[in-house]
């Protein structure tokens, strides 16, 4: 038989009962570059006899070549994976290691200690149940110990092992160990850990890793390994309210409509009623289907397919829930945010928010404060920079189903995605829904946009002029408005300088203020379109994201981007307002084109060469486009 599976069935079930019944413990190590994290993990693997012969051969030669232990075995090399970092001696990313003992399987996330620390540590911490916090016995509790503890607490890691390392360098002193423990105890009171276990070790020599240290007879607690093997980390997630986010609608044929997903909390039985939070509709679970047959009870952690007795509307992203304990369903909430990208957060800018299987357009409507992660002090701020943590109010384009992060890690967490680079730029943890989200509903009105436009006999739309200062935006916009007016159209011109005298006079020229500037003018333009007007907007509007935001606020055929493409040299030569001169002299800060960026449009409907075309020619080009799109006819 080539691949006879039946042969397997006849084998006595001997060898395979060793580790297959065990659970999995995911943990991470934290500490700065020289605290010995990688040495610690390398040594655990080494002592657990998990370093294999061929790996040992390469470890020995690598230790001689690039090791930091004068040619002796450098255990850290076992865990430092990428070649670039082996050579630079730094870890770039999170590395995962796997090992098992007779009692448990382990996945270790090793995170690096350089400046990207918060980001990488948060990434590692989001998936672990326990963290080993390394402390150098000579140095005690440092600022960075506090920082790491705060991040762990923020991400909801409940179990901490305080590994007080390098005990060999303090003569295995019990007093030193006790004083570090005591110091940490007073600090951790402000954090939400369930338990903290302090263990004195020497990673380099292996004291209290696997074997009890002969050098510290005064220590009576568990070794690192015996603690990791036996700590009970699972909170009883099955006792919490049932939640199953629908990941994929399973429709093999017309007679079967199932909802596939992983149960994230609670349990479910056929006959249980479940609610769809977005519609408030309830139904009853008919079957819990798996590849291996139907199951009588689905519990947290299982990937299943549920069928319902009623044909109610359920799509990907909905969270099937216990009707007696429903999740929130709202479009505004407060959340903690860890910023992970080089470009800072701008309140008001539109980002994609992915939470479970729901993706929305979201903006930070208020940045309440940021937290100094070293002192836990609250600081007022206008943006969040890379690795900063802030408390924000969010506003979404459509409501989402969620729970508070502290109640449910799976349904209370989200990521933010940049709409242009597609990068993951932030991690969020929801605190609570904002009350006003429940209470503010759209007031429906009887007179709507189409009715207003019809009375004016025109199609409303936005002509959005963008370009550098001095490119010629205002002159062209002015001319176009004059022509529209003379043709009998109802128009309004929003000009950057003019609006900054009124609506936006509280805003300056930082990136954050520029984002808010455009958000307000886009909202204003939208209201005017709703009123049936043709709106001309003449703003530098340097960022793609905000122009895109303005575009998505109105309907498809209601937005035309007009790029006045005048080279910087030409604008500077013209310098109508004398601003370039001042900017070059350093008298005006954050001037677009000089010390603040301008992002060229990628898909503008009209491009005007401002160095060649006169305002008259430009206006004609714009009218051609309006005709082509039939925007000036009233039918």
């Amino acid at each position, binding site marked *: 038989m*080539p*691949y*006879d599976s039946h042969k*397997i069935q006849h*084998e006595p079930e001997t*060898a*395979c009962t*060793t*580790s*297959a*019944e*065990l*659970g*999995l413990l995911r943990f991470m190590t934290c500490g700065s570059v020289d605290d010995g994290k990688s040495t610690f993990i390398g040594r655990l693997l080494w002592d657990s006899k998990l370093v*294999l012969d061929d*790996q040992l051969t390469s470890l020995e030669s690598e230790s001689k070549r690039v090791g930091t232990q004068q040619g002796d075995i450098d255990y850290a090399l076992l865990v*430092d*994976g*990428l*070649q*670039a970092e082996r050579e630079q001696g730094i870890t770039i*990313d*999170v590395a*995962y290691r*796997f090992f098992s003992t007779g009692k448990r399987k382990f996945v270790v996330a090793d995170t690096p200690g350089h400046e990207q620390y918060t980001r990488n540590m*948060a*990434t590692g911490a989001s*998936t672990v149940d326990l963290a080993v916090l390394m402390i150098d016995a000579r140095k005690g509790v440092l600022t960075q110990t506090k920082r790491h503890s705060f991040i762990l607490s923020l991400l909801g890691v409940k*179990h901490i092992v305080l590994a007080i390392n390098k005990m060999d360098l303090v003569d295995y002193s019990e007093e030193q160990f006790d004083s570090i423990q005591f110091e940490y*105890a007073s600090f*951790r009171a402000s954090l939400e850990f369930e*338990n*903290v*276990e302090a263990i004195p070790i020497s990673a380099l020599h292996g004291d209290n890793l696997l074997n009890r240290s002969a050098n510290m007879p005064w220590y009576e607690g568990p070794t690192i390994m015996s603690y990791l093997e036996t*700590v*009970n980390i699972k909170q009883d997630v*099955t006792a919490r309210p049932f939640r199953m986010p629908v*990941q*994929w609608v*399973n*429709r093999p044929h017309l007679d*079967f409509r*199932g909802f*596939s997903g*992983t149960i994230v909390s609670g349990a479910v039985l056929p006959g249980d009623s479940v609610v769809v939070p977005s519609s408030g509709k309830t139904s009853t679970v008919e079957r819990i289907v*798996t*590849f*291996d047959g139907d199951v009588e009870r689905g*519990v947290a952690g*299982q*990937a299943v397919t549920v069928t319902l007795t009623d044909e109610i509307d359920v799509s990907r992203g909905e969270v099937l829930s216990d009707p007696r304990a429903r999740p929130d369903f709202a479009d505004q909430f407060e959340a903690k945010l860890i910023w*992970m990208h080089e470009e800072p957060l701008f309140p008001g800018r539109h980002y994609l928010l992915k*939470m479970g299987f729901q993706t929305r357009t979201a903006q930070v409507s208020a940045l309440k404060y940021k937290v100094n992660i070293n002192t836990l002090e609250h600081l007022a701020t206008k943006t969040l920079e890379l690795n900063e943590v802030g408390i924000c109010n969010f506003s979404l384009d459509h409501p989402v189903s969620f729970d508070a992060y502290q109640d449910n890690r*799976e349904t209370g*967490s989200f*990521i933010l*995605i940049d709409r242009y680079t*597609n*990068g993951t730029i932030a*991690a969020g943890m929801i605190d609570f829904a904002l009350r006003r989200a429940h209470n503010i509903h759209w007031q429906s009105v009887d007179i709507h946009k189409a009715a207003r436009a019809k009375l004016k006999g025109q199609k409303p739309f936005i002509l959005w002029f963008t370009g550098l200062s001095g490119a010629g935006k205002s002159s062209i916009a002015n001319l176009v408005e004059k022509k529209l007016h003379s043709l009998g159209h109802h128009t309004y011109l929003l000009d950057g300088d003019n609006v900054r005298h009124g609506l936006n006079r509280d805003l300056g020229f930082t990136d954050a203020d520029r984002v808010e500037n455009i958000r307000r003018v886009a909202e204003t333009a939208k209201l005017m379109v709703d009123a049936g007007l043709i709106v001309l907007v003449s703003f530098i509007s340097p960022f793609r994201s905000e122009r895109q935001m303005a575009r998505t606020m109105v309907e498809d055929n209601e937005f035309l981007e007009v790029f006045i493409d005048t080279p910087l040299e030409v604008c500077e030569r013209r310098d109508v307002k004398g601003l370039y001169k001042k900017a070059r002299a350093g008298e005006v800060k954050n001037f677009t084109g000089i010390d603040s960026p301008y992002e060229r449009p990628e898909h503008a409907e009209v491009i005007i060469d401002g160095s060649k075309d006169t305002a008259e020619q430009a206006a004609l080009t714009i009218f051609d486009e309006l005709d082509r799109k039939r925007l000036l006819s009233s039918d």
Partner: protein
Amino acid sequence: MPFSVQEPQRSSLSISKSSHLQQLEAESIYIFREVVAECENPVMLYSIGKDSSVLLHLARKAFSPSKLPFPLLHVDTTWKFSEMIEFRGKIAAEYGLDLIVYTNSRGLEQGMNPLTHGSSLWTDVMKTEALKQALEKYRYDAAFGGARRDEEASRAKERVLSFRTSTHRWDPKNQRPELWNIYNTRVRNGESLRAFPLSNWTEIDVWEYIHQEKIPVVPLYFAKERPVVERDDMLIMVDDDRLPLRPGEKPVMRSVRFRTLGCYPLSGAIESTASSLPEIIQEMLGSRNSERQGRLIDHDSVGSMEKKKQEGYF
């Protein structure tokens, strides 16, 4: 202990209702469903080996009772073990799979073979290049693969979803952070992603799962008397008459099996009598060598896998 508020319950080993294999299974199913729900044209790379067998089993579980919502792609170098090809045919027929077999015929026309061109060039042309050609030909925007983080150091830091530029390159310094289990699958036009549902599995997990789920695998994994020659410290099986024997070489029958499978002239066998799954697992638990040891392609130079990955190798 001055501050230990709550002693952990050391006595209880009821860590969770589900064993670690069920946890791993559920996580893999989650990854399959997520990529299928968000990508337009996914494909699963199928290499016929044990990891592919597990991957296929998990994929069938993920979408049951629906059929697999994507095809399987095998990049065939034409130098695979004949038993692998036979197995591939049987599995495809039995499960009713949409199986695409792709070979870099340009490479073959240029007279490439694994014996004279060396493992490095051979792999580059017949596997890496062939894979790129196939992905471009069928315009897949996502490809599932069976890579595991425990296989090799540079894999240990790869994400579950790994992004490739439009020229299929991997940039290890520019990976997206993966938080919780929220996967960001967005790509720009022309870019693609590779998804690794087995990221957190180890070699032992794979074998234990094969045993638990009774998943069929290629019989080459089980020890049997097979004709081999000893060459460059490796046992090479004489699978067909294309393997030219060097002076003094004579195939001898030895009880061997394979830990990984690939092109037969590049896959080293190990001496073993393990002819059943429990025996294989037992042998693995006592093993003093990692599984890629039998593979020529990883030893070419330090960091060789990392280089291959940057060039587009899985």
